């Protein structure tokens, strides 16, 4: 493609943040389930929530390079906050969502002071430890969370007092998809912001950042808090759309699954987590007949393959393929 007028530096950066036609196509495609798969709207809603969760991990892992094995802690905090709020205060969903986001953000901010001190193996251990700790707290606080029996008594009122959460998941999917899209817009803006640039700088070269005057730890604290807020929203969405909350929402399994989805799709690419989540959830649904332990056999094979052959995930592999193809 010949471009006769060379871009100004500002014009160049602006052009990089423009919407690609494929992106618009992607978001149009998210509306398909309403028309084509009306029987799968509940699943679609779960996918949207999980995709948002993967996006939240992408901000810290894909952009700032902070590996977390305990991200479900914030998901769980959001899930239980929304559940407790609906039971003891009121069932209006938006306020529940906000409370959940705020609480998860608060915990994220508090723990970000710990997280930002560590890197490499100690960081993996600390996030794993904090995640397991959160799970244990939720398990022990039976009086509050219902422990392993699950939380009883979530009641979510209709959205705007009009749209009831129906059996087919129509409202649920619309609600989750709207949340996903709005938060995605914010995340997209964040990635294209000066702050997003700083996060990429941290990922690319931690050691250089202080030499250009950057306080990487402050950046990481901020990114971690934002990711926690988003994860909290995801947890609340799951509680509200399923009218239940359980220990599963705060388990190590969830932390590991979201990591797998993100890496499968391609970390550091915004859409990687979304696509990874969709593939993961659809595959799990299709193979729901087989016992979970065999499902994880394929996940394991997939992980080994991705690490060995597709280091940048599906999206990374695709863009490499496209690059090679267009160069010919």
């Amino acid at each position: 493609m010949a471009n006769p007028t060379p871009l100004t530096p500002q014009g160049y950066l602006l052009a990089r943040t423009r919407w690609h036609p494929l992106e618009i196509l992607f978001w149009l495609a998210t509306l398909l389930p309403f028309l084509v798969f009306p029987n799968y709207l509940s699943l679609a809603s779960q996918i949207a929530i999980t995709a948002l969760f993967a996006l939240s991990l992408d901000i810290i892992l894909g952009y700032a390079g902070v590996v977390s094995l305990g991200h479900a802690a914030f998901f769980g905090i959001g899930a239980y906050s929304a559940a407790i709020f609906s039971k003891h205060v009121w069932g209006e969903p938006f306020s529940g969502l906000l409370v959940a986001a705020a609480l998860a953000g608060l915990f994220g901010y508090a723990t970000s002071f710990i997280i930002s001190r560590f890197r490499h193996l100690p960081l993996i251990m600390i996030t794993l430890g904090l995640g397991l700790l959160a799970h244990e707290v939720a398990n022990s606080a039976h009086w509050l969370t219902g422990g392993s029996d699950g939380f009883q008594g979530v009641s979510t009122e209709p959205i705007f007092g009009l749209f009831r959460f129906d059996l087919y998941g129509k409202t649920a999917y619309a609600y989750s998809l709207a949340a996903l899209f709005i938060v995605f817009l914010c995340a997209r803006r964040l990635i294209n912001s000066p702050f997003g640039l700083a996060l990429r700088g941290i990922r690319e070269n931690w050691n250089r950042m202080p030499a250009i005057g950057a306080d990487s730890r402050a950046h990481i604290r901020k990114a971690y808090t934002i990711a926690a807020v988003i994860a909290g929203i995801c947890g609340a969405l799951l509680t509200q759309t399923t009218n239940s909350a359980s220990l599963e929402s705060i388990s190590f399994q969830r932390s590991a699954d979201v990591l797998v989805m993100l890496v499968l799709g391609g970390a550091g690419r915004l859409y990687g987590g979304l696509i990874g989540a969709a593939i993961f959830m659809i595959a799990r649904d299709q193979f729901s007949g087989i016992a979970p332990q065999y499902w994880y056999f394929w996940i394991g094979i997939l992980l080994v393959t991705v690490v060995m052959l597709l280091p940048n995930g599906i999206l990374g592999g695709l863009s490499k393929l496209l690059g090679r193809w267009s160069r010919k």
Partner: protein
Amino acid sequence: MLPPIFGVLFDGIAYGMLLFVLSVGLSVTLGLMNFVNLAHCAFAMLGGYVTVTLVNIFGWPFLATLPVAFVAAAVTSVVLERLLYRRLYRASDLDQVLLTIGLAFISVSVAAYIFGTIQQPIATPAALRGSFDFFGIGLGKYRLFLIGIALLVTLAMVIGLEYTRFGAQVRASVDNQRMARGLGIDVDWTFASTFALGSGLAGLGGALAIEIVGLDPNFSFTYLVYVLIVVSVGGLGSIAGSFAAAMLIGVSDIAGKYYVPELGAFLIYLVMVVVLMWKPAGLFGKR
């Protein structure tokens, strides 16, 4: 009569010894190559299933299966090291985490496929059943045996690392890999053999663990958490650190479950987070 706290302490120490045998190999290989191996307990589980199979199907005596569990885990680990791990020594932590979590997932499925998801029964020799009465508290014979084995392993490792040529090579490689290479030490070979030994010990630990904690396909993950806690609290590459941390975690876990059962596993996670915040490199860590 001794108060029950001594019984709790005894069980805690025995449990700590088990954790030590399970985790010391990981600590050494982590310190040596900085490789995050989350599949370590899959090797332990392999040892466990080897013992179960030999005892229950082939009628071997329990004690005779222990060396086989060791060898099976060691050999399997070295095959995987040559095929997969070796290619990721210079890769990011994340890639190492993903590869080894993948292997752990696979191990869970394979175990469930072959042996089912039930807890495996094991017949220990009559001599190891029951307990001694020691001033009013019961000391389980099997636990005494476990402590004995763990002390033997510790002794063998200390002697092996301090007084043999191989040990000197391992220590040199842990301290400064580049210098070790410069001195003509074959670091790759040193690592492969240390890795095999560490995984072999895990296999032995897995076999010894059946009587205490049972064996099912989730062993790869359930005990991974404990092992990682021991390793990170103790400090990478430090045998003394792993030993101290295993005791600390073993005793806190048993004491916690005995005195404040409602806290569950809360206590050990708390111990870990507090220790790491105080000393990010672990109790005996250098880095």
